[in-house]
């Protein structure tokens, strides 16, 4: 795609419009009718993921030479928004597959690593995961305990990773893990990123977590015990892993923001339909000004969140600094999603508490948006740092 997209999205470019229309059709015709079942069963929706692969969604922002679609991060955000408007499990599967799985390989990999891994990941035949969080902590990513020591032509990885998305599907090909590979003179750890292919001896995938939301997505604890991978599985420079994943997370935050906008919009869509139909005290709910104000607030939050996310996504495409804007986008969008899900559930009354209604799913899916890829507190810390406020203990 050429040129920098309009941040406010006043006029989407024709290719973006076509993309949105197509993904909207996919979400409405193929996802919506079946996703509730996958969600209830806690089952990974392989057939839907396969269709998304055929559509090229997993290769969207990558160059064609690696099997990508030649799109950009803005296009990916539009796709995530449309998917999450109907279902967040699929949206996070795509976001993690592209943003956390394939993107580090594209951004930091050698030409050989890109050629080796990207074509399969771009086609959606395989998924990759990114293992940063550990049972001991996620926000303080510098406190990584997992280690990787060099032994001849190999890295030996030891440690545990927690809550890793896309890490245990039958099409997961690899996990990139962050690990301490040495110590600096001042005692701080040198963190590096290492690719561990699925099935490597010493790499164990734990059972699927029982989650509150995103139940049709795949999340596992991973254990590494004397797990050996070839030396050329180091991703990027040794000791640069911390800086690398900070920049990956900046990008990921914009994508989670887009997912949040989709969920917030889904709540508006559902409520508009419901208040026009449901009657109480002899009139439609839509005739109650209290409920009109709730829906109006939901719409306003969604609109503001969309502007923030599209602004950050446009910066990403333009190669402009975006740490502040990405943190703001993720913060306002995830909080808008949570607030909308809470209000939508309230508007639906008892039906809102039933898993069979989309708003029931939205309610369960919204909370993690304020936690994953940096909690709301972490976003506020980042914004404060960008404003020049001092680090606090």
């Amino acid at each position, binding site marked *: 795609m050429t040129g920098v997209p309009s941040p406010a999205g006043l006029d989407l470019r024709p290719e973006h419009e076509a993309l949105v*229309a197509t993904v909207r059709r996919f979400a409405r015709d193929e996802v919506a009718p079946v996703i509730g079942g996958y969600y209830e069963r806690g089952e990974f929706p392989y057939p839907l993921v396969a269709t998304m692969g055929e559509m090229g969604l997993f*290769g969207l922002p990558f160059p064609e030479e690696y099997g990508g679609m030649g799109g950009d991060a803005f296009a990916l955000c539009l796709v995530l928004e449309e998917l999450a408007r109907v279902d967040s499990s699929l949206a996070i599967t795509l976001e993690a597959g592209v943003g956390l799985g394939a993107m580090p390989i594209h951004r930091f990999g050698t030409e050989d690593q890109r050629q080796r891994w990207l074509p399969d990941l771009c086609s959606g035949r395989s998924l990759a995961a990114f293992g940063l969080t550990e049972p001991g902590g996620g926000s303080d990513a510098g406190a990584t305990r997992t280690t990787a020591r060099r032994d001849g032509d190999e890295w030996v990885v030891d440690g545990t990773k927690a809550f890793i998305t896309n890490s245990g599907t039958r099409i997961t090909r690899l996990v990139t893990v962050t690990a301490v590979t040495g110590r600096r003179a001042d005692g701080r750890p040198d963190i590096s990123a290492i690719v561990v292919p699925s099935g490597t001896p010493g790499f164990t995938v734990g059972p699927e977590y029982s989650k509150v939301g995103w139940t049709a997505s795949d999340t596992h604890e991973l254990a590494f015990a004397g797990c050996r991978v070839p030396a050329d599985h180091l991703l990027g420079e040794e000791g640069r892993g911390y800086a690398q994943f900070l920049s990956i997370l900046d990008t990921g935050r914009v994508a989670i923001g887009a997912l949040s906008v989709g969920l917030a919009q889904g709540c508006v869509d559902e409520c508009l339909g419901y208040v026009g*139909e449901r009657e109480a005290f002899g009139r439609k709910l839509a005739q109650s000004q209290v409920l009109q104000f709730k829906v109006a607030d939901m719409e306003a939050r969604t609109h503001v969140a969309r502007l923030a996310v599209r602004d950050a996504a446009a910066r990403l495409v333009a190669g402009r600094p975006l740490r502040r804007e990405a943190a703001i986008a993720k913060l306002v969008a995830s909080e808008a999603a949570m607030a909308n899900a809470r209000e939508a559930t309230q508007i639906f009354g008892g039906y809102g508490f039933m898993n069979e209604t989309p708003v029931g799913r939205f309610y369960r899916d919204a909370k993690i948006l304020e936690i994953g890829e940096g909690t709301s507190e972490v976003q506020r810390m980042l914004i404060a740092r960008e404003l020049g406020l001092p680090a606090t203990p």
Partner: protein
Amino acid sequence: MDATVFLKAIPDPAAPPESFAFDGGCPDTSRVPFVLGPFEENALELGLRIAEGTGGSLRAVAMGGPEQDKSLRTALALGATAAVRVDGPPSWADPVVAARLLSAAADRLGVVEVLVTGRQAGDWDRSVTGALLAGVRGLPYLPRVFDAVAEEGGLRIAQEVAGGTRTGLLATAAVLSVTNAPTTILRMPNVRALILATRRPIDVVEARSLLGEAALRERLVDEGVSARRLGRAGRRVVGEPADVAKALVAELEAQGALPGARP
């Protein structure tokens, strides 16, 4: 075997009601997004299958304003080799004139053997264009086709008939009018092809340059549309399953949609 598919974009049936306005009896669709009609989706899928199965090509034709271009681009993204749009006539033009225009536009794209239309347009539900197109071209007309498989000597066609299925071998040029079935669900385009299709040219041709002014003169003057029971469109029925079923039956009866029922 080369095929031409005729596509029509219609106001999105899933668009929120507030995007529709009625201006003096005629629907004002300027704020409504347009989408490919449901039976045209089926026609496009079958056209693609015919082209792929026979090693031929598929071309796409539409009629109307720029709102039709998205559908043509979907066809291009899915593998159509060329697209033409007849610009000018309103969508409710005399169906005979429409069929003649579509036929003339198809000829601009080259000789074709199979002409594929949707069973009926999703906006006016008239179900006439395919048959009229066959009449204009002097070709056999096959209604309610849901499958077409390439075989030695032609295309094995499957059609829906009352209470069953009819199959036959088509060895000549014909017009197929396509219905909805699992075999005609439109595939999802690849996003790369979608992006590229937004940059492909669409041949826009003036209606009058195809048929001349005289042929286009309105013979029927449209005086507007009155929408019956518009306020009840799209009602959602919620509640206990047994109550919902009763309410649905009552609604269908009230609309005259059940056999023997009077609206």
